[in-house]
Structure formats: structure tokens, C-alpha cells
């Protein structure tokens, strides 16, 4: 098989899920004939029919609300939210219903619903198309939140998410949809809720997920040229966090920089900084530093490169960390 894009890997993963379990449904705006605005569901309606791949009316609360009802009936809906900024109309159904259903039912009801959300910036889009809302969901008990960063993970993680008994918000790094990699579909994937050390190093640790994984890898390579050995961890699971490898890395390097596109206040980097600062208190040589989007609305696209954490801002933070 030639290298495959992240979007296509998701498509293949969804296809597998539809084949394996006829209770799996795909639903959302424009997921049918169009195959989604990013073509992630391309061809699936044609092959599985209109009652497996469902174009819904234009209302996100309706999508999640009916998915909950379908889950109650025994289906496993996979809902697409067209862009990150359009998940908020569904926030109530996600936070007060989807996340709480199992617990309300004292475990008698499962909610195996997957919500796919293309997220992050860097594609030159207009307002609401470049956001990183993951922290809202990580703060919500009852949800699990994951983010893939590459085609191989995309392929396996989407299937693992769909197979999960818990509701999962599945973030897809939209500016990486066209990134390619070789995919061995026979490989056995790591557990969905595990972080991955992508690159080992001894001087400092970069912790990140989704679209900035590539940024951090590039930064680590650039740092190597300057003689610095940087460890890079791809979180993959944002909630629950897989803390042991991060703590181990922090204990090893003593210096941690967390990188994401979302704004900083009450974010994943706040959480990771808080946890690491506690768990590795005696090992840290420097405070956990954070390279994030600014605490502003996402800016007009002609300045988005200034907003997004890039290689230079990451390296600058590594330098600052090393200077402690």
C-alpha cells in the first residue's frame, strides 16, 4: 500500500468500523454524498447506504441528541462536527447528557458515541474554523478525549474510539489531514489511552498532541543540531491523561515544555503543568513552561502563523527552560 494521508486513514478506519459492527452509524452534516468537507467519509454512504451513513439536518445539538437516543437503542453513532467552532451548539447535549448518562443510570446504560472534530488552525480559514476546544471536554467528567497526530494513529485510534463503551471526543488535526505515512493495517495498535514517546532525549521534554506534534518533532530535530537532546511525547489521550511516561520523562530530563494551540487559561498545559509539578516536584530543574495559543480569540488568518506555536517559539521555550 502506498503512503496514505491522515484523512484517508480515518476513512479506512471508519470503513473498517462500519464493516465490523453493523450497529456503527456515521452521522453529521454533509457526510453522505459529499463525503464531508474534508472527504473523511468519502464513499461510505455509497457503500453502506443512507441508514448507516446519515446526512442530518443542520443542527449540532440535534446530531448529538439523536445520537444519544440511537445509542440507547443499541447503536454506536459516530458523529461528525464539521469544524471545531461548531461544536458549541451541542455543548449541552454533550456535557449534561452524553457525559452523564452512564453515571445517571448507575452503569446500566452505556453511551458508545464518538464525536469526531477536525480542530486547530493553520489552514487559512475564516472565524470559527481554527479553534482548539479540547479543554472544555477534558474538564467534563464522563467524557474521554483523544487526539491523533499522524495517519497510523488516526487509522487505529478511530476504530478503538468507536469500539469504546464510553463517549469519546475524537480530535483530528485538520492541517495534518494531508500528511502521509505508511500504514500497516495488520500491526497491533497501542492502547487508546496511552501516550507515546516519539523521540527520546535527555535534556528536556516536549509534551504535545495533535497538530503540534509535528512542530515539536521538528523543533527536537533542530535542537539536535545545536547539540540538545529533546524528548517528545505525543499525549494521544487528553483525558484520561497517561501520566506515568510524562512523569518518568520529567524525572529524567528535569525540564518540561507543554505545547498546544489552544489558549492557556485552564487548558491541557495548565493541567499537565499542575500534575507534573506535583508528581516530579523534586526532579524539576525548571518550572514546566507552556507554549500555547494566546488567550485571545483565534486571529484573522493572515496573522495565524503568529498565533500558532511554531518551531521558534518552542525552541525559545526550551532555551528558557534550560537557562533555569
Amino acid at each position: 500500500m502506498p503512503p496514505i494521508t491522515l484523512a484517508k486513514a480515518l476513512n479506512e478506519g471508519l470503513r473498517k468500523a462500519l464493516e465490523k459492527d453493523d450497529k456503527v452509524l456515521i452521522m453529521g452534516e454533509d457526510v453522505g454524498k459529499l463525503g464531508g468537507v474534508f472527504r473523511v467519509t468519502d464513499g461510505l454512504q455509497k457503500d453502506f447506504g443512507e441508514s448507516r451513513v446519515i446526512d442530518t439536518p443542520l443542527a449540532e445539538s440535534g446530531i448529538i441528541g439523536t445520537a444519544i437516543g440511537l445509542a440507547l437503542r443499541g447503536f454506536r453513532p459516530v458523529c461528525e462536527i464539521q469544524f471545531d467552532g461548531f461544536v458549541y451548539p451541542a455543548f449541552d447535549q454533550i456535557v449534561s447528557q452524553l457525559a452523564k448518562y452512564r453515571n445517571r443510570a448507575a452503569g446500566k446504560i452505556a453511551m458508545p458515541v464518538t464525536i469526531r472534530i477536525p480542530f486547530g488552525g493553520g489552514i487559512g480559514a475564516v472565524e470559527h474554523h481554527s479553534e482548539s476546544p479540547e479543554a472544555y471536554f477534558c474538564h467534563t467528567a464522563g467524557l474521554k478525549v483523544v487526539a491523533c497526530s499522524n495517519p497510523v494513529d488516526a487509522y487505529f485510534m478511530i476504530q478503538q474510539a468507536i469500539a469504546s463503551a464510553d463517549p469519546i471526543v475524537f480530535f483530528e488535526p485538520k492541517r495534518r489531514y494531508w500528511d502521509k505515512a505508511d500504514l500497516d493495517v495488520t500491526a497491533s495498535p497501542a492502547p487508546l489511552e496511552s501516550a507515546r514517546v516519539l523521540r527520546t532525549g535527555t535534556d528536556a521534554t516536549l509534551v504535545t498532541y495533535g497538530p503540534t506534534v509535528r512542530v515539536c518533532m521538528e523543533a527536537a530535530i533542530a535542537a539536535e543540531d545545536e547539540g540538545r537532546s529533546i524528548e517528545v511525547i505525543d499525549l494521544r489521550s487528553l483525558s484520561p491523561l497517561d501520566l506515568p511516561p510524562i512523569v518518568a520523562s520529567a524525572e529524567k530530563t528535569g525540564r518540561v515544555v507543554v505545547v498546544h494551540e489552544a489558549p492557556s487559561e485552564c487548558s491541557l498545559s495548565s493541567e499537565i503543568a499542575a500534575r507534573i509539578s506535583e508528581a516530579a516536584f523534586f526532579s524539576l530543574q525548571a518550572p514546566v513552561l507552556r507554549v500555547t495559543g494566546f488567550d485571545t480569540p483565534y486571529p484573522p488568518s493572515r496573522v495565524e502563523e503568529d498565533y500558532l506555536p511554531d518551531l521558534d517559539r518552542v525552541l525559545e521555550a526550551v532555551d528558557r527552560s534550560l537557562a533555569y
Partner: protein
Amino acid sequence: MDDGAELVQLLTPEGERVHHPVYSVDLTDAEYRGLYRDLVLVRRIDAEATALQRQGELGIWASLLGQEAAQVGAGRAMLPEDFAFPTYREHGVAWCRDVDPLHLLALFRGVNLGGWDPNEHNFNLYTIVIGSQTLHATGYAMGMQYDGAESATLAFFGDGASSQGDVNEAFVWAASFNAPIVFYCQNNQWAISEPLELQSRQPLYKRALGFGFPGVRVDGNDVLASLAVTKAALEHARAGGGPTLIEAFTYRMGAHTTSDDPTRYRLSSELEAWKLKDPIERVRSFLFKNQLADASFFEELDAESEALATTLRDGVRAMADPDPLSIFDTVYAELTPLLTEQRDTFERYLAGFAEENA
């Protein structure tokens, strides 16, 4: 807005059977008595719960007083395979779906968040966020359709709920997918302190016209009409006819909940007027007039009612508080590392106290 002409009625407040050109019921004597029994027992459960709340046994209670007929009519119209999606006030429907009333009391006591198994009764957990359940009901109905099942869902909501986006989205979805669902709006005239006029300037059943499916207004204090109209709508849905909106025109005779004080916002004369339309009295008088029940029936029912109340009282008082550690147990299919840590820490913390106190 009380537009009598539009109202489907089969039993007048005086207990007279009246003819309706479209809707009818044809029940055996035993069935008539059964409905009366439902109404009486449901009211008894409600009264007992209100009393238990006053005694401090429940945190709060949302009374269905006045809405017994609307609920029993709808509940008894369902087939076992149909599925009901209640708000927080459908104690009468719960009764018809064989949900132990103690489950309801447990929820309002604060012992759990919904104790029964929805799939055992085809009766969803109570939903407190206004309107949310109408979308769940629609999705469930779509699932029935995909399954090829000949059954339907019944989504309950209030007059106030009709203003929520979710309820209107449920109308959109139901129409678009021609889903087998009956939307059952109990217009009890009030959303806490807000009168119906604030939510809608026309009768609520007409909302359906905006979405392209039928709407009907039924006398919600008439159990026969409520039964007949709901039955017809469910049959229509099961047969592939799509959604119907039923507006059950009724009245919340009590406070919104035991925390509410309706004297702040409505006149007692309104309540007095509605008392004349009491949903139970008219059935009683119908049974009497037509000699469908004898004195022993009423006596036995009284006794049954008392016994039920005793069971509830005893049951509630005997309810154990939940194990604090259960807080963690059903958030996810399995405990996450964070919850394991929090649970373990909390367990040690509680054990520490126990030791201290030992």
C-alpha cells in the same frame, strides 16, 4: 386561549361520555375501573411523596397533581415495545410502565440520579434539563426505524419546554426522518411562574403545523380522550405515518415543586376553576352513573391506596444513603487512572476518619 372547540374530549367534567367524530375508546368495564385505579393510586403516590418531602425525607418533589389523566391516558396507550422519554414529572407514566415508585422517591431523596433500568421498562430515566429528552426520543425512534421495529417512542415535555431549541430541533428531525414518535406536551399552563402566553401566542398543538406534521389538542384532564388520542398517534407512528404532536391541555394544580410558592404569581381563583375539571372526579362519577363499579371496588381501592402509601413511607425511610465511594464507580466503564487515584485516596481518607472515631 382555552379554545374549547379544538379540544378532543370524550368524558366531560361531569362524567358524561361524549362522542367525537375521530377519536373513540371502547373499553371493558374492568378497563374503565383499571384507569380509575391508576388515577387514584398515582395521585396517592404523589400526595405521599409531597408529605414525605415536608417531613424532610425527600430533598424536593415535583407534583403531578392535576395531570394524572394526561399521564395515565398516555401511559396506557403504549405497547410494551414502545419507549417513553419522561421529564421529571411523569410519575403517572412511570406507574403505567411498572417502574417501582420507590425508584422515583429515591431520586428525589437524593439517593441516586435515576435508579431504574430504562431498558427493563422501556421508560427512560428522568431528564431534568428542559427539552433534552425530545432529541433522545427522536434518535431512539430513528433506531426503531432502522431496526424495522413496529414500535414508537413517546416524548414528554412541558409548555415551557416548547421554547427550547432542542425541542424544535426534535421536530425538525422527526419530520425529516419521518420518525415513529409522538410528542406529548402537557400544557399545564405554567412553567414555574411563567404563564403559557409568554411561550406561545397560539395554542401549542399548532406548533406542529410549522414542521409539517399533525398536531392535536386533547383534554388532558380526560383520561379517555388522552388515551384515545395517544393511541391513535402511536398507531399512526408505528404504521410509518411519522410524528404527531399532542398537546394535553391540563393544569398544574400544585406548586411547581415543593420549593415553589405559586401564591407569588397566580390567583387562587384559577385553581378553583380547574378543580371543577378534576381528572379523577369525572371518572368516578362516570363509573357511578353507569354502575361500572360497586362500593366494594372503591373500598378495596381505598385500602390498596393506603397500603401503597405505607409501603412508600416505609420504603423511603429505610433507604440507605449511597456508599460515598460509589461516586466514582459508574462514570466510565472502568475507573480511569485519575479516578482510581482519587478513589483510593478518598478511601484511605475515610478510613482515617473511621480509625480516629474508633
